[in-house]
């Protein structure tokens, strides 16, 4: 593909600041450090009211009666709305529309919206919610996903209790080998825990025929589609503007407060803002699926995988969200980044009366990876290999056939990732550090341990992660490039959630167009969809769209320059900040015009949609070219463990990641370090705990995120083998960092425990709790 070649040429010439391959600072960086960047929670409007949501206290109940009268009588309350006030479709959802805007009939999880109010002050809202009377008939909740699988109880939703059942049958189902290892693994429910809580500002059009919603989301157009349907408005009458997004990680892919805010604003013909509290946020967005994964690997005496068998049960919670796609991702990544000729996989995603689950960074692959990497360590032990050797021996390569029958076409530097990780230096400090500071030990300021109590373990994890959307989804992104007077203005609807797409969009424009002055237009629905900021897809997809739009604009520029100077436009190219003639006539002066000069007085305007190659559904045996592309990563974790108390401290994580091409190395490093922190959280502390269908730790006091004292130094190396399928050679880098670091940390803990008694503990569940280690 010429794209990669062209880009290479630019950067090798003279690497201007701010082009692809350099690390310019974020365009929104200064505003963010000064606090002037407007997050969605910072937005207000003249005459704005506050909105708030009344939620179900029961995991499963029938609504007998709602009496909003007492709330209406509170001074300052302007509106109380329920399901009766939804003018359009009563339900929404990303894949199937099974989730009510407001519950009517039944509530199916603790926290399900039942009503909303608008009032003059958050405290008035709180009092109004407390005043609404809802009478429930409490029903017996479905809390065991295996019961949903078994089909032995009545459906808790008209769509049934099974969200998806999919199997994969590949090769010889009877194949076996002399080594067989198996285990059952559990993954707890993780929360995305973005810091910028859900927030929106809805401004109704005069006359009430439409609404403008300022919203922190991952996908403006999908939001608009769902909102408009529920409001009973044409999509053209619903405009979405991206409010500053304080992180996302999958939790903003589904509708939360969007419809409620718009409904209140339209009802009152006044602007309304809603913001969730942290406690409400835990109820108000989907989470990572808790899962149980059984796996059995058959291998030769040499530790070469012959067959994998697996069974997955994903608890999808009360509503479908993206459960079916998450399950697909999990089961199709059963083999991990390893060759596997034969497979029998059975996967279930089911409905329960737990919190709804959907997208979170890693999207199903996290669950599969914890299982297959734990299995690879068992295989290593059974075959007498070390963890590195067993992985190298089975590493998948470009051209191998996956268990879905799909040929792995992506560049697949798995062995290189493993080897380069292994070459990274181990920590040079002994347990407890040279300075013997208590903060270096597990337990930290709690002074629970002395150096002699601690064992140090090393563990490995390697992952494969699909990029972009799968299973035939028409996945595209739109970008517009305007070029005039030496300035490029780039517009897209790509949700900037912190990942830095606004930075690389400008880098792409500078590189392709030879301009230094690049403006990023408002991110809103005044242009076609960019698709979601998820699935590690925006660098590839929206990067591809920006690249294509800039190339289209560049063609127009070349045509203009060609006509002015009487040169065939096909001979023109960008060199640095100039348009040059690549085939100057001998003897004559070579044409070289600065882009700023060449674009003076003209107005080029190009909009392009970029699509990746089509994919297809899996058949009933799980065969099909369902994925677009893959990225790979290796992690090595060093963890100090207090075996008696079960406390741990991660000392270092080393990683080599297949990034294709690092468009902005500093941004890539930021994704790697940030992803590792989230994977560390899942490994040792992060879990939403529900007892009897009720969340017990809906706060940052009890849902623990890694702090600066929990996060170790990261030693990272980027494996750059540009992928010819990627428009810029660059693979998405967002998800891989958080996937295999979790099993690497758990493996390191197992390694440390093995040193105590030669056996250790299986640790088949994440997060690993102190009791799992100590008891």
């Amino acid at each position: 593909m010429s794209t990669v070649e062209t880009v290479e040429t630019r950067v090798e010439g003279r690497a201007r600041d701010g082009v692809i391959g350099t690390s310019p600072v974020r365009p929104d960086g200064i505003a963010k450090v000064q606090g002037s960047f407007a997050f969605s929670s910072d937005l207000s409007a003249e005459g704005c009211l506050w909105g708030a949501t009344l939620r179900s206290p029961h995991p499963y109940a029938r609504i007998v009666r709602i009496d909003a009268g007492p709330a209406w009588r509170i001074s300052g309350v302007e509106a109380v709305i329920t399901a009766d006030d939804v003018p359009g479709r009563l339900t929404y959802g990303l894949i199937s529309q099974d989730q009510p805007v407001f519950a009517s009939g039944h509530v199916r999880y603790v926290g399900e919206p039942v009503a909303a109010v608008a009032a003059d002050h958050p405290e008035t809202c709180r009092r109004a919610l407390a005043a609404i009377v809802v009478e429930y008939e409490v029903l017996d909740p479905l809390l065991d996903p295996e019961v949903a699988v078994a089909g032995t109880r009545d459906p808790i939703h008209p769509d049934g209790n099974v969200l998806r059942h999919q199997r994969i049958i590949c090769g010889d189902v009877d194949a076996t080998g002399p080594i067989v290892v198996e285990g059952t693994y559990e993954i707890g429910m993780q929360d995305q825990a973005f810091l910028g809580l859900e927030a929106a500002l809805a401004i109704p059009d005069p006359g009430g025929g439409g609404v403008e919603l300022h919203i922190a989301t991952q996908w403006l157009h999908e939001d608009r589609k769902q909102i408009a349907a529920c409001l009973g408005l044409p999509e053209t009458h619903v405009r979405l503007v991206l409010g500053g997004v304080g992180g996302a990680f999958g939790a903003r892919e589904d509708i939360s407060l969007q419809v409620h805010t718009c409904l209140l604003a339209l009802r009152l013909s006044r602007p309304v803002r809603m913001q969730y509290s942290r406690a409400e946020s835990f109820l108000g967005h989907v989470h990572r699926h808790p899962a149980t994964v059984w796996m059995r690997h058959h291998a030769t005496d040499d530790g070469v995988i012959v067959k994998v068998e697996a069974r997955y049960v994903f608890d999808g919670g009360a509503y479908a969200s993206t459960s079916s796609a998450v399950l697909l991702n999990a089961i199709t990544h059963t083999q991990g980044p390893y060759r596997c000729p034969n497979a029998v996989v059975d996967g279930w995603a089911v409905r329960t009366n737990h919190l709804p689950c959907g997208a979170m960074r890693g999207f199903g692959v996290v669950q599969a990876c914890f299982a297959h990497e734990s299995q690879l360590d068992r295989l290593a032990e059974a075959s007498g290999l070390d963890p590195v050797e067993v992985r190298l021996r089975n590493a998948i390569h470009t051209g191998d056939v996956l268990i879905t029958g799909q040929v792995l076409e992506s560049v697949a530097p798995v062995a290189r990732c493993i080897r380069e990780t292994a070459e990274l230096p181990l920590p040079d400090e002994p347990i407890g550090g040279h300075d013997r500071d208590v903060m270096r030990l597990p337990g930290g300021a709690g002074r629970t341990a002395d150096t002699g109590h601690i064992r140090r373990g090393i563990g490995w994890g390697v992952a494969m992660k699909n990029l972009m959307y799968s299973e035939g989804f028409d996945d595209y992104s739109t970008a517009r490039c305007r070029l005039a007077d030496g300035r490029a203005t780039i517009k897209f609807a790509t949700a900037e959630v912190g990942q830095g797409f606004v930075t690389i969009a400008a880098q792409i424009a500078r590189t392709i167009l030879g301009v230094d002055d690049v403006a990023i237009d408002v991110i809103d629905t005044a242009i076609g969809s960019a698709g979601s900021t998820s699935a590690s897809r925006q660098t590839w997809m929206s990067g591809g769209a920006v690249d294509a739009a800039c190339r289209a604009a560049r063609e127009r520029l070349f045509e203009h320059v060609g006509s002015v100077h009487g040169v065939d436009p096909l001979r023109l190219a960008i060199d640095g900040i100039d348009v040059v003639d690549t085939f100057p006539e001998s003897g004559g002066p070579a044409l070289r015009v600065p882009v700023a000069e060449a674009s003076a007085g003209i107005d080029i305007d190009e909009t392009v949609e970029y699509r990746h190659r089509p994919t297809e559904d899996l058949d009933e045996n799980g065969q099909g070219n369902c994925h677009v592309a893959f990225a790979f990563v290796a992690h090595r974790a060093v963890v100090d463990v207090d075996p008696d108390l079960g406390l741990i401290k991660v000392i270092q994580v080393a990683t080599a990641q297949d990034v294709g091409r690092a468009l902005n190395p500093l941004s890539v490093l930021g994704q790697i370090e940030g992803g590792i922190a989230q994977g560390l959280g899942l490994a040792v502390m992060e879990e939403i705990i529900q007892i009897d269908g009720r969340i017990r730790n809906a706060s940052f006091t009890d849902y623990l995120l890694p702090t600066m004292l929990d996060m170790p130094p990261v030693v990272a190396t980027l494996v750059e083998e540009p992928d010819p399928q990627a428009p810029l050679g660059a693979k998405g880098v967002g998800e891989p960092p958080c996937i295999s670091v979790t099993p690497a940390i758990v493996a390191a803990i197992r390694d440390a425990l093995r040193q105590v008694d030669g056996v250790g503990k299986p640790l088949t569940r994440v997060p690993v709790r102190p009791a799992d280690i100590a008891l």
Partner: protein
Amino acid sequence: MPVVVPLTLREAIAALAEHPDAMVLAGGTDALVEINEGHRAIASGASSPFVVAVDRVAELRSWTIDPASRTITIGAGVTYDELMDDPLATLLPALAEASRTVGSPQIRIAGTLGGNLATCSPAGDALPVLSALDAVIQLTGPSGDRTMAVHDFMVGVKRTALAAGELITSVTLPLLDGWQGYSKVGVRNAMVIATASACLAVDAPARSVRLALGSVGPTIIRATEAESFAAEAVDWDHTAMSDDDVRRFGELAGAASRPIDDHRSTAVYRRHAIGVMAARLVRRAVPGGGS
């Protein structure tokens, strides 16, 4: 003005005498959480004060040593970050260690010793230290001053003997001659609520060991059997204790705990953790005699 900000103890007492139901606000690190979550109703619109903010009362922010009785009296408004720093840290090392485990730097700057007592959470980090040191609490209120042993003050989970309109003014602690330390298990290496905690303090001249346990009962528990055992088991002349006795001490400490299962941990783990921490603490206090 519904928030009264007294600058002297006399003013604070007067404000509370006039409005015994007023909320006393010290560092705010517990009280504001309740207000923010709507758990503590706070009315507005009336003319009388509802909040007495005592964070600027000079008398509450100071501490004094009484050399004669070898005691120190710390104002209820002294903050954790002050307890962590010298000279207080050298005088009361276990209290300094406990303070360093409280919340975050921001919390330690605001949170106070008196606030920890008034909240009386079983997980309050300063409380095992106050318990192990047999602290005496000074209170003042409408019916005058009174003093109370810390164990009489702590009545139950977030329940104290504080009467309406009464204010904690200070805490008196002995300056013991002997090793003392605090230990706390939490799932994170910073900003974490105690899953289980313990404070061990040695009174060497008295040849006694005190051990107080946090987060394993409705209030702080003194492991009296373990204490008696240690008093006998320690070779005081050589600061030595056998490994078997250390282990036994841990077992007795674990047995003294009365933990529950909750979303933070299990009773079994908590009891186990108390045993491990107690054994390690006593070994730090009595380094000799081990293998």
